């Protein structure tokens, strides 16, 4: 028997918030909109915590078989499945609306609703003057609804609903300021690029259905476990299809191009959707399907290579960006690359761990950047910032904590999770060692671009004398402080391997990290490289150095920096290779030839015939009484004539003469 966990509450509360604020929001007073918008994620978070606490007390194995604990409690084992009804029921295919809760889901839910709630609070301060206040919060709640659905899904189809839904919410929020052309087109870009990934995911789902006859995660895992010799082959195909979906949603090579543009949305949206939660859905999906990926070493190595390549590629692009949010966007892509690398070396729990710590420090980075942007009245250009340390000290210190965490400063959250992934990669043969080297190099780059941002924005003197920065209200500072605490201390949940043991029932035992001494050596190398990155940033961007002089900042980048500043011209290449041919085909072949000429011509022809016929027949209706009478008489005469000849025919027929006319 199951403990009622009321899993349905988790997605339905945000949905209720979305409906209330979406339909009535513009008529409600602002405080009520705020209350509804905040209660929805808070309630969902409460439901998750309740589920966690109810399940956490199960842990000792004897309790699983014999009820123990407080009287009246009957404990269950994970995964805990709740089914709400049948969705599709055909002869051999049966798909339910079902939610499944296991350790992986719990971690994701805690991150999504917890960080989500903090960002909701932050948004109250950040968006307070926006005319679309209620619309903004309804979209944000809608996002939480779909994200929790995605995470809780008990089968692939429900997951796909959430998957598509978060894409929709992302589109709506990127294009939130739809009057700005750049925001509207960034939203469309995100949507279209995600569609490409979703196509791969969908094909993967069809393959799963064809090969397993079910879409329920646990049933697929059971069927796979029943045939231990089954590796590679069609499983590789399925994994690669799913990987395409994951690269779209998680902004990996080659489908990462939408994420930097997604920064057109409000900054809290960038923090919630495009840093902490939605973009990690791909990582979650791969971890969820780890039993499939485990059977296909080829697909796993592809995942790892894509992850490492993306991490390096995005980090280099982040070096030369001047928009504070774009630096963070490329940093996000790079960190997601680490998570893919972790998945690719089968260290799923390490990847999920990095997902969690990344959610903390990257949300904090975005919110801190948002606080700085807010303080400067909307200025996003790093070159026009500077000297914010004195003006907005709380933002500065929380940002510092996040920068240290992402750079892998020992003891902070990013240090633990990144090291876990790198250590796991190092164990995977030659390829693993190469990927480890890429990862370590990227860690240096990470420290470099993060400290570049830090120096340019916060240290030195203000480069814009018109600016009068001021710290935001408590609703902005509160989440910053809480996330800073999590960024600093969040890594310690893995101390002694507890986090990995917690996830072990889902993702398998922790990846072998080798002998302790090796682990410390790898750790030392990573920290050393991070330190090197900081030193380079320090000598290049500390106050008074040549690179932060007004002339150097205003100068056009040259050489390799120019290549980086233009993001390797990937957008331009995609435009030339994919977008332009598509546009030309659409305009000249599909629009002009097929639509206008063929379809339009056919419709025009039919319409013309009808119009012409109508114009001719219209003459008949002359309105002249005598002409009508004449037609009446003519009609009567015709009937008579036919009757006359018909009677002749009948007469002749009666006499054995066959007359073939009038149908006789």
């Amino acid at each position, binding site marked *: 028997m199951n403990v009622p966990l009321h899993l349905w509450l988790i997605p339905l509360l945000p949905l209720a918030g979305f409906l209330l604020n979406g339909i009535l929001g513009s008529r409600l007073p602002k405080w009520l909109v705020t209350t509804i918008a905040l209660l929805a994620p808070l309630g969902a978070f409460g439901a998750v915590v309740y589920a966690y606490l109810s399940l956490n007390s199960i842990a000792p194995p004897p309790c699983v078989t014999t009820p123990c604990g407080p009287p009246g409690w009957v404990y269950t084992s994970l995964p805990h499945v709740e089914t709400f009804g049948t969705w599709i029921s055909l002869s051999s295919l049966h798909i339910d609306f079902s939610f499944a809760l296991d350790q992986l889901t719990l971690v994701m839910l805690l991150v999504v609703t917890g960080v989500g709630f903090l960002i909701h609070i932050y948004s109250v301060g950040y968006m307070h003057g926006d005319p679309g206040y209620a619309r903004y919060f309804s979209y944000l709640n809608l996002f939480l609804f779909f994200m929790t659905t995605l995470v809780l899904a008990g089968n692939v189809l429900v997951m796909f609903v959430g998957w598509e839904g978060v894409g929709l919410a992302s589109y709506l929020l990127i294009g939130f300021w739809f009057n700005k052309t750049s925001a509207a087109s960034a939203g469309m870009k995100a949507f279209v690029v995600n569609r490409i990934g979703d196509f791969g995911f969908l094909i993967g789902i069809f393959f799963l259905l064809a090969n397993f006859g079910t879409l329920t995660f646990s049933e697929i895992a059971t069927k796979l476990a029943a045939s231990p010799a089954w590796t590679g082959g069609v499983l590789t195909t399925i994994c690669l299809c799913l990987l395409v979906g994951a690269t779209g949603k998680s902004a990996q090579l080659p489908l990462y191009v939408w994420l930097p543009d997604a920064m057109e949305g409000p900054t809290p949206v960038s923090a919630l959707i495009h840093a902490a939660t939605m973009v990690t859905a791909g990582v979650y999906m791969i971890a969820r399907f780890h039993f499939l990926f485990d059977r296909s070493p080829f697909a796993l190595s592809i995942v790892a290579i894509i992850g490492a390549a993306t991490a390096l590629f995005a980090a280099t692009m982040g070096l030369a960006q001047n928009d504070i949010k774009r630096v963070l966007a490329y940093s996000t892509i790079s960190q997601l690359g680490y998570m893919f690398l972790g998945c690719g070396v089968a260290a799923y729990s390490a990847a999920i761990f990095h997902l969690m710590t990344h959610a903390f420090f990257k949300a904090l980075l975005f919110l801190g950047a948002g606080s700085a942007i807010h303080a400067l009245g909307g200025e996003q250009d790093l070159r026009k910032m500077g000297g914010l340390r004195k003006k907005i000290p709380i933002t500065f210190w929380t940002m510092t904590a996040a920068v240290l965490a992402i750079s892998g400063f020992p003891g902070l959250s990013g240090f633990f999770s990144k090291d876990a992934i790198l250590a796991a990669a190092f164990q995977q043969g030659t390829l693993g060692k190469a990927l480890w080297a890429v990862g370590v190099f990227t860690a240096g780059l990470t420290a470099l671009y993060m400290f570049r941002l830090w120096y340019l924005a916060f240290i030195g003197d203000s480069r814009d004398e018109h600016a009068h920065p001021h710290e935001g209200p408590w609703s902005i500072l509160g989440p910053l402080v809480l996330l800073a605490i999590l960024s600093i201390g969040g890594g310690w949940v893995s101390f002694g391997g507890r986090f990995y043991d917690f996830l072990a029932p889902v993702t398998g035992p922790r990846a072998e990290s080798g002998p302790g001494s090796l682990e410390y050596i790898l750790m030392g190398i990573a920290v050393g490289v991070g330190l090197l990155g900081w030193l380079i940033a320090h000598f290049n961007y500390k106050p008074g150095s040549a690179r932060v002089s007004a002339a150097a900042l205003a100068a056009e980048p040259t050489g390799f920096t120019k290549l980086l500043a233009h993001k390797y011209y990937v957008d331009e290449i995609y435009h030339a290779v994919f977008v332009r041919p598509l546009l030309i085909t659409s305009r000249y072949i599909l629009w002009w030839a097929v639509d206008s000429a063929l379809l339009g011509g056919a419709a025009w022809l039919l319409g013309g015939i009808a119009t012409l016929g109508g114009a001719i027949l*219209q003459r008949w209706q002359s*309105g002249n009484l*005598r002409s009508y009478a004449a037609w009446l*008489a003519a009609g009567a005469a015709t009937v008579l004539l036919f009757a006359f000849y018909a009677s002749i025919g009948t007469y002749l027929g009666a006499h054995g003469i066959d007359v073939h006319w009038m149908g006789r």
Partner: protein
Amino acid sequence: MNFIQQDVPLNWYLLLSAALFCLGIVGFLLKRNIITVFMSIELMLNAVNLSFVTFAHQWHAVKGQIFVFFVMMVAAAEAAVGLAIIIAVFRVRNTLSVDRIDLMKL
């Protein structure tokens, strides 16, 4: 009655009926004055009446004669309504020409 039956063959009555009917049609189609048109309709009805009576006499069936009374009754009702309409139209349009009463034209 006897001499009719003997001296005037059935065909003649029918031919007279047909001639009257055709006169009615021609009058209906060619005349512009609405009263003349109306009279043409009465002429056609009476032509039909004549053939009814003729056949009733020929077959010694009373049904045809009963039908004649029906037709006369309908014609009387029609005359009453029709003339009322004609007067109403004349008051509004100040004309009796059917060619000019064409408000319903497209």
